[in-house]
């Protein structure tokens, strides 16, 4: 049942997106490198780049690219 709930919550998130203001895809791309470095530096990236988190929750493509860039930069620094 819990899995059922989670599946439907995910569906609702895909349909309704995140509440509040968010960046556009272009703004997300412009800020992505800075955002990732802030995250890796332990800074409050969401505070410093407002609207990024909401966009990453709403846009699957930008979300994947965020995860990829963070993983790549992390791997390079390891």
């Amino acid at each position, binding site marked *: 049942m819990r899995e059922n709930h989670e599946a*439907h919550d995910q569906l609702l998130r895909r*349909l309704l*997106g995140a509440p509040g203001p968010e960046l556009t895809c272009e703004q997300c791309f412009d800020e992505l490198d*800075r955002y990732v470095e802030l995250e890796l530096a332990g800074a409050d990236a969401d505070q410093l780049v407002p609207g990024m988190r909401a966009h990453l929750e709403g846009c*699957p*493509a930008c979300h994947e690219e965020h995860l990829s*860039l963070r993983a790549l930069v992390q791997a390079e620094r390891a």
Partner: protein
Amino acid sequence: MKTARVATVGALSRLLPPSSALDHAGVLDADSRAWLDALGSEGHAREQAIGRLHELLLRGARFEIARRRASLPHLARGELDDIAMQSANDALVAVLAKLDQFRGHSRFTTWAYKFVLLEAAVKLRRRPWHGRELPLEPERWPHVSDDTTSPHAGAERTQLLEAVRLAMETELTPHQREILVAVALNGVPIDVLVERLGTTRGALYKTIHDARRKLRRTLEADGYALEPAPPRGRER
């Protein structure tokens, strides 16, 4: 190969706003400065720098392909190598063309990597959809089964999902509905739609964004208390 006029480090530094990637004197970190110096030079030094940049981008493309390898069983090794090379080539053109837009808000390599990750991701998303028809109408609305452990919560979800379905039918334009259904219900990657419809990711995402805002307004007006969507996981 397409190249771009490269701003000198001195000229670039004057344009750079204060940033976490700059030191207290507003100077780029040494590695980023070295990249810009080399790419801004002439002759053999510049050619060498472009060669190193291409190697870096190719490494980024291969990293992305390796991350997605498990979901790409239908692609042969040779095809993946081609995608990596094409991605690095396309990203190199983009990076050189936009070099004067680098503001030092991150390290140069982080900035450059995002271009090749975008190129590789878009190509990899599109490849499985070549020659396939796009599902633009709902293939199915998922069945919400009864929840015996928490019937109330289950009923609320069922009701909300039904209200969303209805609002999509009555409130959205045909274009908004088509795009939202394809992406959110049928799992079509936005980059595949971009290619088929001859538009941009930004324009399509705006359609999705506007549709979602319309749905949220309708649901709230109908008395549904929409909790803030929880993060899908920071995956830190």
